[in-house]
């Protein structure tokens, strides 16, 4: 009798655990901190244009790749209620790198200013007139000071 009771309790606990895990999977927020994830590609301010000029290495980047980009800040804005950094290479010309910043970096963003050289890590989404990255996190600030 006791054996059956123990078995039932174990089974119930197992069902509850599976239910919790399933619910966690269904309900998990679409957020991820990529800061400690392994970078697949690193692009520096010097070879930025090699990747993001049309018909160049842009074709080698796949959507959803995690990329670390070094660039100069062209603009920081809060359009649409989101913090976004626009990066450029050595020249101030299109195409730019649009980095939609991960939330929780407001303190770091306040320290940034135009023409600072920074490194950000983000998920490459694709290329329109500019290269689009989401979930960006600042990894280095003022690299050449």
């Amino acid at each position, binding site marked *: 009798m006791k054996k059956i009771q123990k078995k039932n309790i174990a089974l119930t606990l197992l069902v509850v655990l599976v239910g919790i895990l399933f619910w966690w999977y269904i309900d998990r*927020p679409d*957020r991820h901190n990529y800061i400690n994830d392994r970078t697949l590609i690193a692009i520096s301010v010097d070879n930025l244009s090699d990747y993001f000029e049309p018909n160049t290495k842009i074709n080698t980047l796949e959507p959803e790749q995690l990329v670390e980009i070094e660039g100069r800040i062209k603009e920081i804005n809060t359009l649409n209620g989101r913090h976004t950094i626009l990066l450029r290479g050595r020249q101030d010309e299109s195409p730019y790198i*649009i980095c939609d910043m991960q939330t929780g970096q407001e303190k770091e963003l306040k320290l940034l200013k135009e023409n600072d050289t920074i490194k950000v890590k983000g998920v490459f989404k*694709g290329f329109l007139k*500019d290269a689009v990255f*989401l979930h960006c996190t600042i990894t280095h600030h003022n690299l050449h000071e």
Partner: protein
Amino acid sequence: MNKFIILVCFILCTGYHVVAQKIIARQGRVAFFSYTPVENIKAENNQVLSIIDLSNGSIAVSMLMNAFIFEKALMREHFNESYVESDLYPKATFVGEILDFDPLLRGEQTRIIKGNFTMHDVSTALEIKTKIDYIDSSYEVSGSFEAMVNDYEIKIPPLLAGNIAKVITVDFRFEYEPYQE
């Protein structure tokens, strides 16, 4: 007489200057909403590109389908992998014309934008009522329209049919700046 000629030249020159240029929005916002009794789904894309040619009122919009941000990770996965198949059809585009658009008219004007919206490799003709604000030398275009899921050959499994509305509400807002090619 001389003053009149100077005035006409000035108006023509400034007018030509304004209508000759193109304007660009690199961070336009497109959001969609699906309301059902089971669940509400909303997503937004804040990196939508749009260019308007002020000389003829033509407008083009392009967006990356995988750049929509959802509340839940599973919603994004379903959207990209099962519904819009963003690996096969990465972009959605709109090409059209702003009817009776006056780029020199300051303040607010309500206009119809007529054109073709292409998503999931399916094109549909749309007419969208749009608000255009021209304030301090910058243009803002905003509006909304409704899209039928069936029109774009998006297949929803019967099990999830109750979770997704048949008609999706799409909101958009673009802030433009001068564009130099």
